[in-house]
């Protein structure tokens, strides 16, 4: 399997764990990722909240570059995934809009290649195949799989059910971990509002953490840098501001797949989290 890889702007900074672990896991499983040469930002929420044509065109440039290679695109970041997939979906069904966007980018895009998320790519490796590759099972590790919004909504691009998804739980079960039943799988963490209106995000994230803890999770897994930032980094702030004592490590799901399949823990960047991951690392690495 070979894909065009879209790392997204946070790949070296706030989401370095996701980029590093995705690359390492794919390498381990023999999934080839070829970075889209000279990619640009997908525009994220800032673009689609400001100008529809701009948002589509920023994403379309990346998709056009990937299309030249003839490969399906995989985006690690869930926000990038949503923007690229929405652009592809809208342009695929609307030849006039596609022509308009192409006249903006100056690149001939035909919306032929699929856009996939990282959970889909790992899942496409196959449940049995993945299970066969697990040599350090995460036995007894209780995880709360958190999807947030961007992978399951809107419906046109969802990778799984919008209210009751399973894809991450399935992957985690292959790795020997034990997913818990909880209620906040697909509740919003507030994403970018964390910068502009942090108090709102405190409440949303505190609710998510509280439910995960109440249902016995040892940790949360996610597949989105925005979710990770809010759940991990802001957890310390929430403890301070809301007088809570949360201590839930938050992993990218690829980090745990990496541990289970025997990837060198050093390349999974387990030490750059804000909530200490040592206990889990000691037990499973």
């Amino acid at each position, binding site marked *: 399997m070979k894909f065009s890889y879209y790392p997204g702007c946070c790949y070296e900074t706030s989401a370095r764990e996701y980029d590093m672990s995705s690359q390492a896991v794919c390498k381990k499983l023999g999934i080839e990722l070829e970075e889209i040469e000279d990619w*640009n930002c997908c525009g994220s929420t*800032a673009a689609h909240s400001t100008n529809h044509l701009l948002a589509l065109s920023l994403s379309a440039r990346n998709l056009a570059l990937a299309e030249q290679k003839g490969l399906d695109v995989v985006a690690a970041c869930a926000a990038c995934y949503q923007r690229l997939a929405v652009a592809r979906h809208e342009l695929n069904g609307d030849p006039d809009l596609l022509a308009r966007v192409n006249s*903006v980018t100056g*690149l001939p895009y035909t919306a032929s290649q699929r856009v996939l998320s990282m959970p889909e790519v790992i899942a496409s490796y196959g449940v049995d195949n993945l299970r066969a590759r697990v040599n350090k099972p995460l036995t007894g590790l209780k995880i709360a799989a958190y999807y947030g*919004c961007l992978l399951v909504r*809107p419906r046109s691009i969802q990778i799984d059910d919008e209210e009751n998804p399973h894809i991450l739980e399935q992957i985690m079960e292959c790795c020997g971990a034990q997913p818990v039943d909880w209620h906040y799988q697909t509740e919003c963490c507030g994403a970018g*509002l964390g910068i502009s209106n942090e*108090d709102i995000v405190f409440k949303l994230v505190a609710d998510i953490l509280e439910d995960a803890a109440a249902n016995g999770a040892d940790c949360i897994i996610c597949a989105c840098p925005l979710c990770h930032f809010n759940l991990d980094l802001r957890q310390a702030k929430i403890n301070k501001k809301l007088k809570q004592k949360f201590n839930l490590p938050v992993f990218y799901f690829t980090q745990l797949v990496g541990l289970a399949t025997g990837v060198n823990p050093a390349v999974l960047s387990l030490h750059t989290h804000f909530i200490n991951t040592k206990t889990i690392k000691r037990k499973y690495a």
Partner: protein
Amino acid sequence: MSAINLTTTLKHEQFIEQVSRESGQPVQQCYQCGKCTAGCPIAFSMDVPPNRVMRMVQLGLRETALSCNSIWLCAYCSTCSVRCPKNVNLAQVMDALRIIAGKEKRAKTARARHVELFNRNFLNSIRRYGRLHEFETMTMYNLKSGQPFKNADTGLYMLSRGKLKFLIQKTSQMDQVKQIFARVKELEEK
């Protein structure tokens, strides 16, 4: 019987038509069940709940719809959209309202201004580098929002984990990125 001002009615219809066109959504379909508001994670902090924003649009109440902070606080999580029994993608309607309000510089409350400023800074980074430069975008946001030390703790946390990069990573073919911004502006002004 009270008099009906036909000019106002016409304006109302223009607004309904504009939002329907820009969002691509059948706004008339909403029958005010309130499911969107019930499931909205941000509703607690909005001045007008989502179903009422929708009603304002249906009634053509341009001023009230475009000046509430709800349209800026909507996080586009799309929970409303997938639960709507009439298949109205309300997140898309909120997006359209934000776009119209943004063009008319209507973000007035502190909450709305901060979202708008964040978005503007984010886009400035793309315009200049093709990519988001987190450090510069955050610093500029703090300076422009008049709270230079806001999120300083976040910045320090990030720095301590090697998550802040000062070096700017640019898209090499910046002419293509610049063309996108220029062409969009050109087409919109036509």
